[in-house]
């Protein structure tokens, strides 16, 4: 149990997918203008990332590794992610058309989020088993959502303040993101101890 908790803390905070691995920066800058948008996008990404991690593990273990098809890994995982996004869209629409109308906008954006591809590839690299792959995907996605919400809160506050014209818009966003990344470097002390 302890190893699972450490794996999840490591994935969510110490090796944060956005601020340490620099994956998923496009959606990080794109959907963090409002907190509610960030929460919606974060939850959708968490769902897709976790399910993709599980399916990618199954494909790696039962198909790619036994038949020596490792060179097809990236393209296969891209197809898996696209299929999971499409499946999620279909399921949400079937479960509740109202939910789909409310939340459907975030789903297509996930397909091109490189963090969703990066996590299954990191799972393969780390030789994780089923439960480790799932928890690593879940915790990484949780870390991604956490950063999205924190950053959206900061940007909402920045929008209320006067920023020098030269730094207005994305530049002050990147400066803020760099300070946030420095703050998250503090978590690397956990792994040192």
């Amino acid at each position, binding site marked *: 149990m302890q190893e699972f908790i450490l794996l999840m803390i490591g994935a969510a905070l110490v090796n944060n997918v956005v601020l340490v691995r620099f994956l998923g920066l496009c959606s990080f800058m794109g959907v963090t203008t409002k907190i509610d948008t960030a929460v919606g996008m974060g939850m959708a990404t*968490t769902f897709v990332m976790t399910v993709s991690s599980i399916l990618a593990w199954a494909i790696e273990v039962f198909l790619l590794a036994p038949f020596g098809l490792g060179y097809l890994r990236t393209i296969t995982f891209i197809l898996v992610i696209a299929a999971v996004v499409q499946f999620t869209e279909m399921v949400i629409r079937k479960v509740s058309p109202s939910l789909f109308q409310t939340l459907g906008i975030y789903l297509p954006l996930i397909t091109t989020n490189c963090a969703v591809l990066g996590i299954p590839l990191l799972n393969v690299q780390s030789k994780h088993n089923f439960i480790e792959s799932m928890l690593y995907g879940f915790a990484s996605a949780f870390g991604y959502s956490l950063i999205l919400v924190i950053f959206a809160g900061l940007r909402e506050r920045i929008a209320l303040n006067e920023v020098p014209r030269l730094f207005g818009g994305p530049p002050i966003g990147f400066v803020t993101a760099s300070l946030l990344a420095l703050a998250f470097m503090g978590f690397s002390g956990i792994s040192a101890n």
Partner: protein
Amino acid sequence: MDGHLVEGVARVVATDGDTVWLEPEQGEACEGCLSASSCGVKSGGSSRRLMARRFSMVNSFQGQVGDRVVFGISERSLLRASALAYALPLLLMVGGAMAGQLLTGSDADAAIASVLGLVGGLLIARFRAGHLDAKGELSPHFLRYAYGPGPSDHCDQE
């Protein structure tokens, strides 16, 4: 938090008695997003996607085809919908897998338990979403008419 609304702009595409059908407009920022092609904003899939996201409202505002309106949904409803659609099935899936792994120590059992958790979560989500829908919590509300040209009113589109 209850009073805060998430706003969007939609165009009336059909009327049917007391009901109007609306298609949401893509925000201007969508055009510049690197993921725009996957949404269909920059491709021919745009109209198909918008049609899939068509929704209805009670025509309390005497809307006509072509009118642009601002609609709103409360932040609380949006958060509740997100939790219901994604968080609940996901947590049950992860919980099921953890229970399967800790009880039997087998990957296969953990995988089966996770699938059962996911299906159970989706069934609960369906039930709860129906409940919220019946109370009208997931429905957008008319706020005001939107004035000025919309994204589809420009004639210099690619």
